[in-house]
């Protein structure tokens, strides 16, 4: 018997400082990931979203505890925003037995069933049909749950994107398609690969709303995603949210970034969502010391989790087939 995946509900509405902590936790995690990669402690590649944190955190704020997320390979932010522990995240990055997937997935495939995080997907746009399926299960079982499916601008030209949008529309699925438009599909400028200005316009072709939002503004994302999840929950079907955002780092380590100028990156850095959130908190009258206290406690938590993961053992080779069906023949 496969138990239905149920995530606990009820959680107080996060304060501005909580949201800030979430933003800097993700930023700090990814900066440490960059450093670990440069020290050859991470295998394969990593795909970071430094600069894009407000989209994931805003999506979390605009959804309810218990709602699901189906991230992509650039998915650390969603796993962490949905509550994955730093221990599980660093453990997975480093291929340790303490990792969320016990070292089977790595950076691209963070998953946390208890927190409602489906495995990050390393095939562009493949998560959209899967998110339709989790939403379909919820609609069939009359569960009050919404699925958030983030993906990049590059995914919008895949067949799976179009098939999923149509399915979600015809079945009125409780799903929010969340496009992180960071202007580049991997290393190719968006303007070179589409002839439309607004990707959110594509929703009209499938008969449901598409909206653009400032993806550098966590409150704006939260508001738009909140409207979309409300509509989904009340049987109103899907929404395509296009968050205009920017990654300050390359697509992957070693990306020489010939496709953009230093000036463009600097202009976007002026709109850093973390700086914006600090200014808001100061505007609210929060003391600088409280913010610094938050900075320190998040940094300490990250450092402790990174150290613990570095000290943790790798998975046992004798356990290599963990998670496979009992009939799988895998012995050499």
């Amino acid at each position: 018997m496969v138990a239905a995946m149920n995530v606990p509900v009820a959680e107080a509405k996060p304060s501005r400082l909580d949201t800030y902590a979430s933003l800097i936790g993700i930023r700090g995690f990814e900066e440490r990931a960059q450093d670990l990669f440069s020290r050859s402690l991470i295998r394969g590649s990593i795909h970071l979203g430094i600069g894009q944190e407000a989209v994931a955190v805003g999506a979390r704020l605009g959804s309810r505890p218990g709602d699901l997320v189906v991230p992509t390979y650039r998915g650390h932010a969603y796993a962490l925003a949905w509550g994955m522990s730093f221990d599980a995240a660093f453990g997975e990055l480093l291929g340790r037995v303490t990792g969320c997937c016990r070292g089977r997935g790595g950076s691209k495939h963070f998953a946390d069933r208890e927190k409602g995080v489906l495995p990050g997907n390393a095939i562009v746009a493949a998560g959209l049909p899967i998110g339709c399926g989790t939403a379909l299960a919820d609609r069939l079982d009359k569960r009050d749950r919404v699925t958030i499916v983030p993906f990049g601008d590059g995914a919008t030209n895949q067949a799976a994107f179009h098939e999923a949008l149509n399915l979600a529309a015809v079945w009125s699925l409780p799903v929010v398609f969340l496009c992180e438009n960071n202007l580049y599909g991997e290393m190719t400028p968006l303007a070179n690969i589409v002839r439309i200005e607004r990707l959110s316009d594509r929703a009209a072709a499938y008969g449901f709303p598409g909206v653009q939002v400032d993806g550098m503004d966590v409150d704006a994302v939260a508001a738009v995603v909140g409207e979309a999840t409300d509509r989904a929950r009340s049987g109103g079907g899907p929404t395509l949210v296009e968050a205009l955002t920017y990654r300050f780092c390359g697509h992957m380590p070693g990306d020489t970034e010939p496709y953009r100028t230093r000036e463009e990156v600097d202009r976007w850095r002026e709109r850093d969502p973390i700086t914006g959130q600090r200014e808001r908190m100061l505007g609210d009258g929060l003391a600088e010391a409280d913010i610094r206290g938050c900075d320190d406690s998040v940094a300490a938590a990250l450092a402790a989790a990174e150290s613990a993961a570095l000290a943790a053992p790798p998975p046992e080779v004798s356990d290599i087939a963990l998670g496979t069906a009992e009939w799988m023949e895998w012995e050499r």
Partner: protein
Amino acid sequence: MNDGAARTLTYREAVREALWLELENDPDVFLMGEDIGQYGGVFKVTAGLLDRFGPDRILDTPISEAGFVGAAVGAAMVGKRPVVELMFMDFAFVAADQLLNQAAKMEFLSGGQFRVPLTIRTQQGVGSGTAAQHSQSLEALFMHIPGFSVAVPSTPADAKGLLASAIRSDHPAIVIEHKALYGIKGEVAEGLYRTPFGQAAIRRPGSDVTIASYSRTVHVALAAADVLASEGIEAEVIDLRTLVPLDYDTILDSVGRTGRLVVAHEGHRNVGPGAEIAARVAELAWRELRAPIRRVCGLDIPVPYAAPLEAAWLPSAEDIASVVRETVGSAASPKPA
């Protein structure tokens, strides 16, 4: 679970009965596919299910294989038991990412956090002039990529029992029916029963040669065995029933008695199931073999349309009998003691 009483059903009716009983048995089971509801499926397997179970259990989909197979993967990952009808096996290529990159890998790459109790039902094979894009046998793909169990029923009883087992499995399963078998009749027990995966059936005992086969080709092999018997050659015909897991014990036991193995199937020969079976048996039973292992397969060219060409493409009873004769005749040296 098996009420015992048997009556004659067609293969099509047997599949439908398994679906019906599992839909009654478990509210998490639901069906998705193209034209499976009101129309009842292009092979009429799902006829009547929409009336009985309603549109929330029997979902007609757009022609959008990557979309709805992916949706089935997602639904399975949160606890449903979707049964997807893929109208033709050939369409698996359209949904290949969701089948082989997604369904087949989610359990493993999540470190066992997620289960994918997904069943794909499809049909394949040659026999009605459906030509190159509607006739392929693609079971080797699902044997090659770890993740799916693979059932290939040859009889109405197995069509029902293997499908019921697939739906009950907590892991991805594909049940590959054969388009030329839907009308065949056979004894089928009433009630819900589950035929275990990984247990081959000896359809005809024999002492001179082992013919390992599955799906429609089992019937071709049995026809070949009748011809061979009239010539004094007794062929043992094994119906593998499932290819993943594959019951090597039954093959090895049989080869231990006959010393000769012929593998017969419709799929292409090159890197087909027969290649893997031949390799394994050679590795494990070299000393038992009195003749080279032989394969009788679909030709390594696409399936043609015109009737005589299609018939020539397909392995016939005479093709099998002819290879068996060579195999039996080539036993230059007696089996070592």
